[in-house]
């Protein structure tokens, strides 16, 4: 479960560059719900994710994950509750470490790390079975450096890595945006499978309205740091991309200025 109350985040406060990224967002996501988040550039989507993961500290408001109030926790401490996949395929893994070593890092997320060997034969067996489900032929390449993989392969492995250790929530930050359409579709399908299989509480930011409606069971739209609408269930299943655009215009009472929202 994720619970966010009256969350406010301001960048460069008291300067000419002052930006109010989040303006009092309140949001509750029950366990097992898959929420997609859309909004134009600068709407605060990524900031919301970062405020939940602990990368951005909030000026006001509170964040709880599961039943824990984590507002004052650092990002590494929150990692025992939060699994993440980033937009940039390079950001979620270490290029110079092998696939197995990257997975071993994720395997111990939120747990005590000792001087025992980082990658054991037992782990290799487990990792191989995890990787084989990707059908990317990575089973026998666990010893290869991560940097040798394509962006799509790295993103697929990052997604697997998010599921290796126990977690309360999964945060996906436009994790298909940097991929070509075919690979993006593959990663989206994989996301749906993994989330359904493990009943993950998920918050996914996306640039694609299509994806926002196809995946998950609830959609939020952010604008200027606020939730402008929130649809789920029956109402959401009747929606299509043009409806979403129209709703956005109605709610804001203004024309869509940002083309990036229309493109997909």
């Amino acid at each position, binding site marked *: 479960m994720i619970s966010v109350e009256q969350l406010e985040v301001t960048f460069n406060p008291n300067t000419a560059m002052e930006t109010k990224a989040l303006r009092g967002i309140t949001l509750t996501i029950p366990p097992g719900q898959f929420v997609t988040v859309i909004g134009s550039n600068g709407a605060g989507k990524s900031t919301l994710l970062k405020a939940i*993961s602990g*990368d951005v500290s909030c000026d006001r408001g509170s964040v709880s994950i599961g039943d824990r109030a984590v507002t004052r926790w*650092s*990002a*590494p*401490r929150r*990692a*025992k509750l*939060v699994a*993440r996949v*980033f937009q940039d395929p*390079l*950001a*979620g*893994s*270490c*290029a*110079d*470490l092998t696939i197995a*070593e990257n997975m*071993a*890092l*994720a395997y*111990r*997320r*939120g*747990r005590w*790390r*000792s*001087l*025992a*060997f*980082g*990658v054991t034969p037992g782990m290799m067996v487990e990792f191989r079975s995890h990787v084989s489900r990707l059908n990317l032929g990575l089973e026998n390449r666990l010893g290869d*450096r991560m940097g040798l993989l394509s962006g799509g392969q790295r993103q697929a492995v990052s997604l697997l890595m998010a599921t290796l250790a126990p977690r309360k929530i999964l945060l996906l930050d436009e994790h298909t945006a940097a991929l070509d359409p075919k690979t993006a579709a593959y990663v989206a399908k994989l996301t749906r499978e993994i989330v359904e299989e493990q009943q993950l509480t998920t918050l996914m930011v996306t640039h694609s309205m299509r994806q926002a409606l196809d995946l998950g069971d609830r959609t939020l739209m952010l604008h200027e740091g606020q939730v402008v609408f929130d649809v789920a269930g029956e109402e959401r299943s009747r929606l299509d991309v043009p409806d979403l655009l129209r709703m956005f215009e109605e709610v804001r009472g203004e024309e869509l200025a940002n083309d990036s929202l229309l493109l997909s």
Partner: protein
Amino acid sequence: MSWTAFIGALETGFVYGLVALGVYLSFRVLDFPDLTVDGSFALGGAVAAVAIVQGMNPYAATAIAAVAGGCAGLVTALLNVQLGILNLLASILTMIALYSINLRVMGRPNVPLLNQDTIFTPFEQLSWLPDRWIELIVLAVVAIAAKCCIDWFLASEIGLAMRATGANTTMARAQGISTRGMILLGMSLSNGLVGLGGALFAQTSSFADVSVGGGTIVFGLAAVIVGESLLPGRSVWVATLGSLLGSIVYRLVVALALNVDGLGLRSQDLNLITAVLVTVALVLPNARNPFQRLLKWGASVTGRVPQ
């Protein structure tokens, strides 16, 4: 080249091999440009020499010297992590401070270790081999043992976390790794190795001197870079082997250059030769370049575009 010069070069190569391993940890693994080593190398020598002169067991003295080096590294890391001082500047501050501290530790600029027991003494009494050989063998064993320990450490769970910290901070934090803790630990280990190198250097050359640390960072970096060109490869054990080998090869090349009369080089040219060597290695295409960011920064200030 004379036999003595050859053995001497090998000895120095192994001693600075420890420095190279430390520099590998800070520059390569943690991506932390650390100049503390100039101070912690001299600190290791100073602490070991003073402790030995005061009658302490040389092994205990050497261990304390390594710990002292580690503390110096910890100070640099704390300046960076706790106070948010830029890593390079933090290390320069510690290095400057250590000059005074080393003078305080020794009470004067130079402490001779003549006719004192060193870590080599028990072996020299046991064996019929010449003392020079014993020193070389002990240094080689220490350096290779340190290399193996680092290989093992970097393959452990904590070691993987440390490599992730240097390679991708965002990812490391997302995996629950305390990147601050890793910088503190890694910098201590790195400078501990350098302190150990300083202690061994004092015991092989029979003195500790406050100025002995000058340029240590460049020697260490030269060894790492020479090692990388000799043994390219990204796995840890290759890189650490390269650092040791780089240090030895570098010392042999320098010894050779100094011994060729036609070149007219003298031992006082050592720093110049090293600086030229490192410059060439840094500018060479495809060299992994820890100063890249500094070059870019320099270019943005001077308006010149680096190659």
